């Protein structure tokens, strides 16, 4: 199992790369890579994504193509015209606009797929650890929100079925009431139950101390310095240098204060994870992909406007993208864990 920070780097690299191109060839390669990595993690027993990337694509691609096709009236291949009196929609509907919309939908699918894999592969506990110590409680809230999503999806399904067995059909907005009300009430009940359970297990008992006045004062001072510097930078060209100094000072005050606050948070970590060769390999793969993406921006460029053409494909870029495939090439975590355990037993 990889470190949560490594997974985060992998997801961000995929996001940056996918955002850097509209070439359907590169986007499809990225989609294949995230699908393979996701399948490999699922085979290891990671939790399933609530919505598969394929299902996401069936919604995102047509919607995006339709929206772009109807609102962007640019491109040489005109399919048909909508009446000009229609606000926003009136004008030529072109093949290029539809294609660009579809490519945007595919890009969104790649990003969704990458973050689905990140969510699948990272245990909730590790997500809490990703947050800075000063924001530990925020991290816990985020992790609870993540575990709430699948629970709420299951609840929604159950309630829809329960309402269907009393003859309920959705014909208008009002018909959602029998589903929304129990969903909200059960969600609130679950939230209250969880809060009770956490308090009963001592949550907040050691971190419930109030922030000292000095910390609050420093945070306010840092924020004011930063905002003042930013305003000065915007409105007075002559003050740019001292303004940048003020921004840096404000940011430093906030950073140091947060670091000190984080140190004061009393929290320990059960079984800290050790860095592995796998982590290093995945980081290297991401670095290669990221470096090529940032240094070869022109090679990534493709636009279907003004006339749809075949997209280019550079073998070097294709090879660089394969760096993101590294998580799927590592040995499965279970085997790794078994090996680790037998090593522990031998020693």
């Amino acid at each position, binding site marked *: 199992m990889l470190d949560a920070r490594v997974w985060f780097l992998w997801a961000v690299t995929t996001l940056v790369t996918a955002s850097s191109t509209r070439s359907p060839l590169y986007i499809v390669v990225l989609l294949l890579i995230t699908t393979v990595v996701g399948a490999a993690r699922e085979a290891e*027993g990671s*939790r399933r994504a609530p919505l598969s990337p394929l299902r996401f694509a069936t919604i995102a691609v047509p919607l995006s193509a339709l929206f772009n096709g109807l609102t962007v009236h640019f491109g040489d291949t005109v399919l048909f015209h909508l009446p000009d009196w229609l606000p926003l929609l009136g004008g030529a509907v072109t093949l290029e606009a539809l294609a660009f919309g579809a490519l945007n939908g595919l890009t969104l699918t790649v990003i969704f797929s990458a973050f689905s894999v990140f969510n699948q592969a990272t*245990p*909730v*506990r590790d997500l*809490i650890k990703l947050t800075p110590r000063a924001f530990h409680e925020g991290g*816990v809230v985020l*992790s*609870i929100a993540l*575990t709430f999503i*699948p*629970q709420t999806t299951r609840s929604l399904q*159950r*309630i829809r*079925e*329960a*309402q*269907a*067995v*009393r*003859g*309920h*059909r959705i014909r208008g907005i009002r018909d959602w*009431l*029998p589903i929304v*009300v*129990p969903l909200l*009430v*059960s969600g609130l009940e*679950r939230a209250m*139950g*969880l*809060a*009770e*359970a*956490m*308090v*009963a*297990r*001592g*949550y*907040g*008992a*050691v*971190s*419930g101390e109030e922030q000292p006045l000095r910390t609050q004062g420093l945070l306010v001072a840092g924020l004011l310095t930063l905002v003042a510097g930013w305003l000065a930078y915007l409105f007075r060209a002559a003050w740019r240098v001292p303004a940048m100094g003020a921004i840096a000072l404000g940011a430093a005050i906030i950073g140091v204060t947060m670091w000190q606050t984080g140190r004061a948070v*009393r*929290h*320990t*970590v*059960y*079984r*800290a994870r050790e860095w592995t060769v796998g982590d290093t390999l995945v980081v290297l793969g991401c670095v290669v992909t990221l470096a090529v993406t940032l240094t070869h921006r022109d090679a990534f460029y493709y636009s279907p406007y003004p006339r749809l053409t075949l997209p280019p494909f550079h073998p070097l870029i294709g090879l660089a993208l394969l760096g993101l495939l590294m998580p799927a090439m590592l040995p499965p975590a279970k085997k790794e*864990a078994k090996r680790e355990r037998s090593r522990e037993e031998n020693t």
Partner: protein
Amino acid sequence: MVYQTAISSTGCDSDMLDNSSISFRDLTYTYPGSPDPALSNVTLDIAVGEFVLVAGPSGAGKSTLLRCLNGLVPHFTGGTVSGNLSVGKLKPLEQGPQMLSPTVGFVFQDPESQFVVDRVEDEIAFALENAAVPPTEMRLRVEEVLHLMDLAALRDRQLDTLSGGEKQKVAIAAALALRPRILALDEPTSQLDPQSAEDVLQALVRLNQDLGLTIVLAEHRLERVLPYVDRLIYLSPDDESVLSGSPRQVLRQIELNPPLVALGKALGWEPLPLTVKEGRRHAAQVQAATDPSLPSSRERHRTRGSSRWSGERRRPDTRDPQFLVQDLHFAYNGKSILRGVDLQIAPGELVALMGRNGSGKTTLLRCVVGLLEPRKGKIKMEGKSLVGRRTAEISQDVGYLPQDPGDLLFADSVREELIVTLRNHDLLDHPPVTPEDLLTRLGLETLERSYPRDLSAGQRQRVALGAVTVTKPGLLLLDEPTRGLDYQAKRELVRLLREWQTDGASILLVTHDVELVAQAADRVALLSQGQIIADAAPELLSTSPLFAPQVARLFPGTGWLTVDEALEGLDTQRDRN
């Protein structure tokens, strides 16, 4: 014992550990906005190391009493409180749950609602991480509770892949991680099948007997817990009395008894038996005076059709079934769930469908109402196929009550819930049964303006029943209808089912509750791995080690399943002799 030595090695206040007895003095608590107190002048003591069962009907204040122990009441709920409560040297009412968490562990009814993270080991460590316990100490404690609760093999598992019983054991393990000396559990087995419930109870017995943990447990199904407890506390909602004492002392003074105790009281057995093993000694003496050639009570039921309150049991009329399932197959993600199920129900017949969790019982019901599409097979109601029809259409003829009645309820009043169903089916102008009549039958006429979600578990379930039966369906499907219900509510449910049967409705009841099946079912079908492996009269239960009710275990071979049948059978035998 690792657990004990580890406690002393961490330098805990040994004085506090030794003296964590519980003492309530004139405790009165009222929830915000409620006119009546939930607890009135409660005075009682619980000694260190006792296994205590808190019993009483729904709404009697069992959960409130438990929540007082760690200060969730009043710190989490608000409300007014008077009197005193001490746990050792601690004062929960003043200090609150966070201060009490190292001393009082708390386990809730639904294990899923208390999980914060997604893996077994992480969930157990969560409280320790937040208590800033050093990592080496933390590993020791996690190992301890994993082994104590027999969860070591599941340490890496995702929580949502565990069975109900395993989840509840993880919840208990998570509560034990802080090494409390008292464990309070609010109906921890109410959501579990009998085998899983037994596993959880055995784990609690081990904690109590081996480690000396004080266990305070609220539970409706007394028969499950009575064999293990030292003390029974009975809360009554009607008067302000709290009965506390040995189980036998308290059971003599209350009416809601499990079958074994009810029989023992009726026959004047002394000492009152709490376990089937104890009961067998008395039963053997009674049986010594019986004539084995006499007909069994069940046989006489068939010929005379009499019973004290469970009503006449019917023989299935298989020639003309009202409801028929034939060779039904269903698969999910390539895995066969139902593999050729055959079942039929005659008009007015109540069939109980039993089987372990995951055997396919709920899947069968969902196929019948069209929520799932079977791969193969027939489902017919009064000769017409239900396969391929829409759920909304089927539900006019087939009433389906899912496991959680809360999923059905959303309207502002009890009456409105019934109106909504009629409106859904376009039956508002000519309802098959008027909401007023149905509410009277359900015993809800005085609550027709109440907000459904504010009602007790039993009342809520009756509202949900009303919402699915206001179309007067010919077939009623009930999925685990007695979960969380007390004996009174269960008795009320059986009465209602009998009335529907008399009106000609067929009923398919999915349940783990063997005592309910013994009282209400005309026939029992056992489902295992997607196949009906037995389909026979309820006597079938008496020979099953897993499903036999208490009376059948007491008098094996007689075919008696309920207290009334046993009393009647014994009366007859006595008369003959």
